[in-house]
């Protein structure tokens, strides 16, 4: 027994004892259990006829997703800092300072998101007397990563509460929700407080340095520039005039939601998710194929007189906005995605198509990814239903 076990064993045993029926902490039983099983694995043994079990539990499963998000978190922190440094005169441009500025933005957001979300999760677990689910550990990290740097913290709190309660808990909690809770939280903020989550002035943390902005400062994101490029102009040139090219959009040194800019960082996350088999390659791959397909269709139909956005080379779409982030971390949420094998391909493909369709053709929503995923979340059960009917028909045809 190592020293950590020696330190923890007695207090944990005592806490467990106090939360047994008839003891003072009885009502807190599920909360105690959550802490206990965090610190040490449960003493449970198999009781059914399947006497041995795989070592994987939901805690490790969820932690893997969090691990996959770490590159996006770290890059997001640095990039948030760098965006501020580049927009303001006279700031120290060192790596450490950038991380420091970024951390000052992101960490309070994470704290609010986790405090509100886990608080609700615990309350529901205590009321309903079920285990505290680990699902929110992922949701709580996804929410700040999809937010602009300048979002007021209370909005994150309200959005998180909305997402967790109305997208998840009212349906029975983790595993029973049909919408992605993190995206629901974002959609709630998007429609309730549109000025704080869209437009040109929210993406960089510059509120404190308003007087020292560099000359010619513009906070516009590549998507906003592409969407507003006048007919007949070359959209790639317009982007590069604003300082955006394929390379920096791929690396992610551009303004945007905190964790959504670096395709390289998501690539690392995607590798972790795919190698471990935690996320479905079917969904991820078909989303990217769907997006590329729609981009190519626009390229084919685009002409000099059409929307300039239609002529944007298709591969630019894949590195702009929230597309890559959504494809890796949002579409692959197994609970809200289609569950059948073929269904996953259809689900992902349609998300990719819809995201680019909304992005290019709907001027009110410069980013279509969030809405495309939520829309397909709603249709996922229908896709699965069709696949199940095919399965049933095969069974009947065999007879």
């Amino acid at each position, binding site marked *: 027994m190592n020293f950590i076990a020696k330190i923890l064993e007695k207090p944990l045993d005592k806490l467990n004892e106090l939360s047994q029926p008839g003891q003072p902490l009885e009502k807190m039983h599920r909360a105690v259990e959550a802490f206990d099983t965090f610190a040490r694995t449960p003493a449970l*043994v198999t009781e059914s006829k399947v006497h*041995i079990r795989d*070592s994987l539990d939901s805690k490790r*499963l969820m932690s893997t997703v969090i691990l996959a998000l770490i590159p996006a978190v770290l890059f997001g922190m640095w990039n948030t800092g760098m965006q501020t440094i580049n927009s303001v005169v006279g700031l120290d441009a060192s790596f450490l300072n950038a991380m420091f500025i970024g951390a000052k933005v992101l960490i309070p957001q994470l704290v609010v998101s986790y405090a509100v979300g886990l608080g609700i999760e615990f309350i529901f677990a205590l009321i309903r007397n079920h285990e505290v689910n680990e699902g929110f550990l992922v949701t709580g990290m996804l929410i700040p990563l999809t937010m602009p740097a300048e979002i007021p913290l209370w909005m994150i709190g309200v959005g998180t509460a909305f997402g967790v309660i109305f997208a998840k808990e009212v349906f029975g909690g983790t595993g029973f929700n049909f919408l992605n809770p993190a995206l629901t939280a974002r959609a709630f903020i998007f429609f309730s407080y549109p000025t704080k989550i869209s437009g040109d002035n929210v993406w960089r943390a510059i509120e404190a340095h308003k007087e020292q902005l560099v000359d010619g400062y513009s906070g516009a994101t590549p998507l906003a520039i592409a969407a507003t490029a006048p007919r007949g102009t070359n959209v790639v040139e317009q982007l590069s005039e604003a300082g955006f090219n394929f390379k920096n959009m791929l690396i992610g040194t551009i303004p945007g939601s905190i964790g959504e800019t670096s395709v390289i960082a998501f690539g690392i996350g995607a590798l972790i998710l795919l190698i*471990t088999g935690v996320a479905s390659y079917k969904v991820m791959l078909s989303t990217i194929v769907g997006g590329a397909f729609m981009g190519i269709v626009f390229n084919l139909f685009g002409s000099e007189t059409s929307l300039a956005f239609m002529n944007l080379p298709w591969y630019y779409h894949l590195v702009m906005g929230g597309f890559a982030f959504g494809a890796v971390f949002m579409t692959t949420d197994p609970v809200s995605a289609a569950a059948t094998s073929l269904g996953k391909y259809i689900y992902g493909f349609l998300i990719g198509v819809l995201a680019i369709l909304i992005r290019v053709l709907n001027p009110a929503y410069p980013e279509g990814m969030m809405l495309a995923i939520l829309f397909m979340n709603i249709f996922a059960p229908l896709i699965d239903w069709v696949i199940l009917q095919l399965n049933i028909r095969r069974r009947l045809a065999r007879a």
Partner: protein
Amino acid sequence: MSIHYIKKGLDIALDGLAEARVETFTAAKTIALQPQDFPYIAWRLAVNEGDDVQIGSPVLVAKEDESLILTSTVSGKVKAIVRGERRALLRVEIESDGQNSAVEHGALSDDQIHGIELEVLCAKLKALGVWPLIRQRPFEKVADFNKLPKAIFINAMDTAPLAAQQAVILQNHQEFLQKGIDILKRFCKDIHLDSAVKDQSFEKYQRVQHQKFDGPHPAGLIGTHIAKVSPLNRGDVVWYLTAEHAALIGEAISKGITPTQTIVAVAGSKALRQQYFTITRHSAVADFAEIQWEDTRIISGNVLTGNSIGKEGFVGFYDSLISCIPEGGQQHYISEDQHWTGPGFKSFSTFRLFASKIFGNKKWNLNTSLNGGERAIILTENYERFVPHDIEVGFLLKAIIAEDIDEMEKLGLLELAPEDVALCTFACPSKVEVAEIVRQGLNILEKEG
């Protein structure tokens, strides 16, 4: 001969596989017949405590079918009638007197086997107590003579962890397997003998269709064989039994007495002698096996489908394996290898999430720890990795939990038995009891008729 390659599934290489060495234990002390081996059948006692019985004497009689009986495999005295909660009958224990006096039913010659009326043949098998060895799908229940099957499957392979090899088990009554096949052929012309691709010892048997299977577990399960060879459609019935049990039927008819001998494997890291034993059928485990009894789960059957029987347990009616694995429940603290944050050098998993995937052992000494807590189902397409049937297991479970009878049947529940989805239970990170849910679903369908 057809060869079927199974791709889906998982072989779990457990420590302590039985060596192919057979030791004879002729003098059984106690045997027991246990109603738990026969779901869907209510039994009434044919004996009282202290009664004298012979080999072949009826001990239990099915309430719904008086001709269906379970017979003693020793001569001696009824030692105890053990009841559990609400007086449910757990088992009837019989102590051997070592005399081996048997009830004679008269042997049948080959000509008689072919000429005798089917009803008479069935009655004979029932009287000898070997009829219950034949089971049927759907539902894994004892075969019903009133509805003859579309096919009979004789299984001569097993791919479960630590499984006993049919070729070893069969060595005492090999000569009776052909006879058993011929007897079964009277009930159905379509007989399949399923064996592993690597095992040629069963190819000499005649008047059967040879089906060869290769691949990971559940390639050796009868449910897989039926799905690949002759899938169950609405209203279909298929009978099945192991090759050894077919041989026991042949032996019973040839000799006219209830067969008493069988071979079982004792395996697992907690078994002191990991080998095969010739024993009296239904013997007490303690009479022949040498096991490190402390902190051990003793299972009649394999670790994915067997019953935990404890020190005083008996070999189950259909089982030819006693698995002995360590009890779990050890708590691993944060910073330890097997904590959920640890690297997991010692953690066996089907997921590529542990260091053991790279540096792992070839053989595993798994214990009975649940390795986590119960949660809602999160991952999708996880269960389908282990089920070769064309069935959407995740959706089937939802239909069962919702008690949607129509939907569960449409989604193919009748093609499954709990053992077919045992690996899904094993590999579920949410620790959902998939096999138990399937069992509940089948119970609902059975009750509905």
